[in-house]
Structures are given as structure tokens and as C-alpha cells.
């Protein structure tokens, strides 16, 4: 089995714990600070939307492509969302080339839930001909470099790519689909913001690095919509979280998500 967790040396583990005891992280951050975050929208001209996110040394690029498809029988009046993620073999020495592994699939599904359940996109407006032709929104996420907290980095890349998407609409002319001449944005109505916390020893930290994830008890990712509702949650890691910690993280995540919302909105309004 390939090793996905780093084996952290005893000395390094001690160093991490001692530093946490002083209210700091080994990279100099506070316990509730994100790493430097840079988000560059529209990096791929050939995609309808795209964003390149650098969260410390975690580097993720997301691209949006629009397609036309047949709606699902149970939702004839809704467009389709397909989220796909690949942790590329460029990302770490433990990543083998090949079809998406369970980590990539979990990543795609958590990002998908954040987009879907926050009702970010009004899928009823992505219908060309009810029951026959709807838009398929493909969100493809490529993790290029890996240093922990892939969930937040991938989620930010995906939502910024969607928010900045512009595509040529199809118009139904007597049963024929004709490409429109002017690009339009997606019908965006909300923005789900993901934040991820980890529990190491007795400490709760935000935005864990890979090294921190490798020694953590557990991790909790929470997505909040703009009204402050929780719309997606994923617990990770092979340990448990105390009920008290879950309750604490729910509150911390809410205020952190508001902070990150401002950062993302700033990026989008400047795009």
C-alpha cells in the first residue's frame, strides 16, 4: 500500500507539540491562522472558468467546462453538476499515476456537496429544453502540489472558477441548438465556504499542513452558506473527535468561514 501519511519523526512531533503549547505552529502561524492564500482566477483561457489556488504549498487548479446533456429522469428541469478531482502524481511521492484513488474521490464528493447543498448554482436556469437538453457543468480539480488541507484549497478553486465562469449559451431554435453570440455567467445565488480544522493532542488548529494531518487525531471540514447555515460536513482521519470539540469547531468554523468569505468575494469582485 502506498503511504499517504508522512511518518513524522519523534523529534519533529515533539517540536510540533511544544510549539503548539506556546500558541504557535512550526511555520510561525497562530493556531487559527490560514497559511498565505493566493487565488488567481481565469488562468486557463480555454476553460469557461478557472482558478489557481495556492494555500501554502498546497497547489490546486480547477477548471469549469460547459457541456450539453440529457437531464436525469427525476430532475428533467435541472442542469447537471459533475465534480471530478485528481490528486496528480506531481503532488507527492506517494501518489501513483492511475485512475482516481479513494482520496481523490472523497475530495471530489466533498467539494460537490459544498456546491450542491449551498444551492450555489440555480440549476433550474440551466435548462435549454425541459426533459431534453440541459447544461452539464463540469468542474475538474487537479491537485498539483500537496501539503495538507486539500478540501479547502480545492473548494476555493472550484467555487472561484464557477463564480468567474462565462460561457456561450445555446438557444433552442425550432428544435435545433444554436450557439449564442455573447457569453453569459452562471446563475449564481449563494457561496458555500469551506473551512477545515484538525485536532492534534489537545489543540484545535485550522488549515492543517500534511505533516500536521499525519499526526492529528481527526479533522473536520465544514461548509457554511451565506446565511450562516451548515451545508456540508466531512470528518476525516482515523481518530475520533470529542463531542465538545465538535461543538467548539462548529462555532470556530462559522466565524472563520465569514473571514474566508470576504477573501474569496474580494478575489471574485476583482476578477
Amino acid at each position, binding site marked *: 500500500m502506498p503511504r499517504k501519511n508522512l511518518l513524522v519523526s519523534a523529534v519533529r512531533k515533539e517540536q510540533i507539540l511544544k510549539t503548539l503549547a506556546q500558541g504557535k505552529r512550526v511555520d510561525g502561524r497562530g493556531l487559527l491562522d490560514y497559511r498565505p492564500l493566493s487565488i488567481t482566477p481565469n*488562468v*486557463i*483561457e*480555454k*476553460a469557461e472558468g*478557472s482558478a489557481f489556488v495556492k494555500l501554502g*504549498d498546497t*497547489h490546486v*487548479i*480547477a*477548471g*469549469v*467546462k460547459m*457541456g450539453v446533456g440529457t437531464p436525469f429522469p427525476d430532475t428533467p428541469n435541472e442542469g447537471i453538476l459533475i465534480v*471530478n478531482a*485528481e490528486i*496528480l*502524481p*506531481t*503532488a*507527492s*511521492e506517494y501518489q501513483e*499515476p492511475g*485512475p*482516481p484513488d479513494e482520496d481523490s474521490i472523497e475530495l471530489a464528493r466533498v467539494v460537490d456537496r459544498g456546491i450542491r447543498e449551498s444551492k450555489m448554482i440555480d440549476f433550474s436556469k440551466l435548462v435549454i429544453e425541459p426533459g431534453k437538453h440541459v447544461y452539464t457543468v*463540469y468542474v*475538474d480539480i*487537479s491537485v*498539483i*502540489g*500537496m*501539503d495538507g488541507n486539500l478540501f479547502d484549497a480545492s473548494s476555493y478553486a472550484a467555487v472561484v472558477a464557477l463564480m468567474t465562469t462565462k460561457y456561450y449559451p445555446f438557444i433552442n431554435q425550432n428544435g435545433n441548438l444554436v450557439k449564442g453570440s455573447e457569453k453569459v455567467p452562471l446563475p449564481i445565488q449563494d457561496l458555500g465556504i469551506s473551512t477545515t480544522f484538525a485536532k492534534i493532542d489537545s489543540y484545535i488548529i485550522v488549515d492543517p499542513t500534511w505533516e500536521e494531518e499525519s499526526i492529528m487525531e481527526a479533522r473536520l471540514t465544514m461548509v457554511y452558506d451565506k446565511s450562516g447555515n451548515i451545508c456540508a460536513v466531512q470528518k476525516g482521519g482515523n481518530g475520533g473527535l470529542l463531542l465538545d470539540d465538535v461543538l467548539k469547531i462548529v462555532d470556530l468554523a462559522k466565524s472563520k468561514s465569514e473571514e474566508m468569505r470576504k477573501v474569496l468575494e474580494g478575489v471574485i469582485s476583482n476578477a
Partner: protein
Amino acid sequence: MENPLIVNGKRTDGRSPTELRPLKIDVGIIKNAAGSSYIEHGKNKIIVAIYGPRDSHRYGMNIERATLRCRYHMSPFSTEERKSPQPSRREIEISKVIRDALEPSLILENFPKTMIDVFVEVLQSDGGSRSASITAASVALADAGIPMKDLVEAVAVGKVDGTLVLDLNDIEDKEGESDMPVAFMLNENKVTLLQMDGKMTVEEFKAGLMMAMEAAKKIKEIQKEALAKKYSKGDRKNDA
């Protein structure tokens, strides 16, 4: 001809027939990799990561030298139409020819029974993505400290509207008469990649090869600068 690709000696993107597209290389962009690079060549945007040499127990490992493995992969959003994430036959062939283009430059005897991986990810594709991949991969291998006889650089030449042109862009690649990517190890006067499709006369072929070689010299300078930029970061700061 419906849409001419060359008008008054200028190509669709305004270049002359012997002009390269803008080419930019960054070195050392991925923390976990032994070596890495990012290239923008025309509209190509490509990332290369090197892992290894590393211990490998795979069957068929070479016991006298390191085994080179290469994966060329295109992101689903890299093309006009969304590309399926599964590797296509085209990607598998290109992976192989990239490996064959790089291997002659490497001194692999120092690392017996190990594996060196070259992972190429095309984030956005344009004409000549395999050439750009080779140019970038060679720099990434140097960054990884894999001993090599020379850097390898690649570029395509081809025939468009009856004219021999350098460094084909997307539309020239698709609609031109021929496309010929070539890779060089200039110090040894060797060609390490040579493919062609379309039609050319023998004279055009020979002239094209020379044209590609002249361009490779320019590309080599860009490779050298990119490496120097990374490895003298601290020194440059001092000079300023």
C-alpha cells in the same frame, strides 16, 4: 484556400515564419518533488514534476541503471472540448516519445535498480505541447540533480500555406500541411525526438530540421536562465 494562415508574411498570431512564440520557464515550483518546472510556450501551460531516483521493486527493473518512467497527461479543462480524464492512446504514445527524447541525455548508471519518474501535466494545451513538455522536463530533471550530458530542447517545424514555419500554434498544427516536432542534444549534435505527419519534400524536411536546430539554441538560453534564476536567488538579492 478558405482561410489563409499566412497573410503578407505574417501568421495568424502575427509572427514571421521563423519566429518562436513567447516562452517562459520557472524552476522549482512543487515542494514535494525532487525537481519541477512550469513552462508557458504559446498558450501551452505545462507543469513537470520529477520524483526519484527512488527505490523500486517493480518487476523488470534495470539492475545496471535507473529506469526512467514518463507520464504525459492532459487536464480535462486543457482543451476546447472537455477531455476525459482517462489517458488516451495519444497521451500514452506521447508519454513514450517524451521518455525516449529525454533518456539519451541522462547518465542513469549512477542509480542502479531505482526509478526516476517524469510527470507531465498539461494544464492548457496549444500546438506543440509535447515539445514544450520535453523542454520543461529536461529543466526539471536538472533541478532534480539527475546527472546529464546536456539539456534537451524541443520545438516543432512544419509547412503552412506552402511555407516552412517554426513553432506551430494550434490552428497551424491542425490545418497546416505538415507538423514535425524535433528534440535536440546540441552538444552532441544529436536528435532525440523526431516525428512528422503530413507531407514535405526532402528539401523542406532538411531545411526544417536546420530551422528547428537554430530555435533550439535560443530555447537552451531560456532554460539556462531559468535554472540560474532559481539557484542564485540569494546571490542575486545581494547584488541588488
